[in-house]
């Protein structure tokens, strides 16, 4: 900054091959190249290789053997795969739908103009998200223990204790609760920033027309918040399909390292196929199926949230 501003004489006297335009293009390509180089090696190439791998039998060490669709056949006839598939969907639904609705409610409450301490609330709501999932899972595994606090509370209101660490539904409830605890506040803050982007004069003109708070919510807030609702539900859906750490840590406590069936998810299935059993082919096929399911659900999600408003009246 402090140096004297003098144009270098070289730049004018010669007309080098590297013209100003060429040089600046070259610079730009250099600046962006790290991403493209790293992504080609650790992103793009592995993706294609996964698809390729799904048609081979391989233990990651010996020679690869082409087996056609055998891997897909193997996993689709494996009952454990279907358990992991349905677990993923069930826990996905249980963790996502109530979570998005709760987040929306909290955001609307936070946004309503009269809320004081808005910043403090935002920080408190965001805190669960900064903690590692491992820590969250450890904490909740004490709360969900047989004699843990949740069961104590349930008993307090006259409900029988539930086997949260071994029961079919218990495990799913416990894991979805962890997911909800971690992400509800995060999503509420996303919704809040969406709410803050809605222009105030819309509300003012609605008030002049005599709209009450509820009407304002249903005819202004929710429709204008739609892009955010789509974004949040899409992210939550994709996240739910990739559920791994919670079930792995929560159910891995036996010391054998195997994940029990009540909470096995598609990614835990993939993990144990590859890194425990050494079946890279079937693991790759699982990854491919997971990818297809992700696309399917993302499209479905878009269709529901896009079409919801226009055709909502007829369907309901």
């Amino acid at each position, binding site marked *: *900054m402090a140096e004297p*501003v003098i*144009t270098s004489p070289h730049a004018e006297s010669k007309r080098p091959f590297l013209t*100003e335009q060429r040089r600046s293009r070259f*610079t*730009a*390509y250099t*600046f*962006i190249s790290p*991403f493209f180089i*790293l*992504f080609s090696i*650790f*992103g793009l*190439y*592995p*993706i294609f*290789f996964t698809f390729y791998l799904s048609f081979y039998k391989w233990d990651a060490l010996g020679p690869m053997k082409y087996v056609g669709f055998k891997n897909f056949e193997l996993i689709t006839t494996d009952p454990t795969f279907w358990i992991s598939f349905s677990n993923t969907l069930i826990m996905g639904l249980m963790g996502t739908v109530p979570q998005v609705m709760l987040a929306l409610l*909290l955001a609307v*409450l*936070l946004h*309503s103009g*009269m809320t004081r301490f808005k910043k403090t*609330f935002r*920080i408190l*709501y*965001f*805190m669960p998200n*900064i*903690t*590692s*999932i*491992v*820590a969250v899972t*450890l904490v909740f*595994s*004490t709360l969900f*223990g*047989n004699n843990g606090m949740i069961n*104590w509370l349930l008993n307090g209101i006259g409900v029988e204790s539930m086997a949260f660490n071994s029961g079919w539904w218990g495990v799913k409830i416990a894991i979805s609760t962890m997911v909800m*605890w971690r992400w509800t*506040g995060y999503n509420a*803050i*996303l919704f*809040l*920033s*969406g709410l803050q982007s809605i222009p105030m004069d819309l509300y003012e003109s609605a008030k002049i027309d005599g709209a*009450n*708070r509820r009407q304002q919510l249903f005819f202004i807030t929710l429709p204008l918040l739609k892009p955010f609702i789509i*974004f949040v539900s899409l992210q939550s859906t994709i996240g739910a399909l990739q559920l*791994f*750490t919670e079930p*792995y840590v929560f159910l891995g*406590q036996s010391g054998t*390292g195997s994940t029990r069936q009540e909470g096995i998810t598609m990614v835990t299935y993939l*993990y144990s196929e590859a*890194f425990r059993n050494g079946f890279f082919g079937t693991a790759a096929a699982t*990854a491919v199926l*997971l*990818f297809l399911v992700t696309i399917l659900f993302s499209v479905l999600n878009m269709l529901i949230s896009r079409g919801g408003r226009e055709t909502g009246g007829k369907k309901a």
Partner: protein
Amino acid sequence: MSTLRMFRKKPDDPGFFGKLGFYLLLILGALVSIFPFYWMFVVGTNDKGAVFHVPPLLTIGDQFFENFKRVLDKSDFFQALGNSLFVSSMVTVSVVFFCTLAGYAFAKYEFPGKNVLFVFVIATLIVPQQLGVLPTYVIMAKLHWIDSFKALIVPAMVNAFGIFWMRQYISSAVPTELIEAGRIDGGGHFRIFWRIAVPVITPAMATLGILNFMTVWNDFFWPLVVLKNKEHFTIQIALQQLFTTRDGLDYGMIMSATFTATLPLLVVFLLFSRWVIAGLTSGAIKS
């Protein structure tokens, strides 16, 4: 019920009971959000039986150091903490540097293929990590990077979200005239980037840095796949290992470790929460 009646009377004022209800719900939500942190500390500072005390124990005890001593016996806790710190810092410095460079190029340079390349960067955001995990593992094995920090650091050195986020910020915060003036005065490209652009965009770089640090610090899946040896474990893996002890679960020990591992990030977050939240929301709106 009373809230509904209030709404109808005065559309823009929910009245006293409405307000009270709003605040009660918000406070309940906040309590649920922070209770597990407190509980972590309660269990970590009490003796073994505290977790399943009936009725639940809610007071802080004095056994923290006793519990933590057992953590140190069972694991290389501080080594793991140091490993996490090392890996997260390396990744963060690199991500901030390369993403800022790339974001700057996308925001302020004209070059053939710019838009296509940028769309490509954004498109990579939707590909799930698990899709490429097996071949990446094989690559790591071929490079002899299994069980080394290189496997954690190198693939994460630059990412699409960071490029996107820096481009958005640089487009609006760095005036093009300033860069042009720098060029006319004969400054080199990198020099202008470093001396003119970087000082203006430090807040955005800091936000990206903190968000990235938290993500890497909390990552579990990939370290679990590539790290084999106890002395290379990151803190997340070390915590999970404490949980797999066969001889009955010592929750006092586990929670004293979990709390100690959570504390640094919690402090950093509370110091920079404004930036973190701003980063989070501005990243979400446009993607």
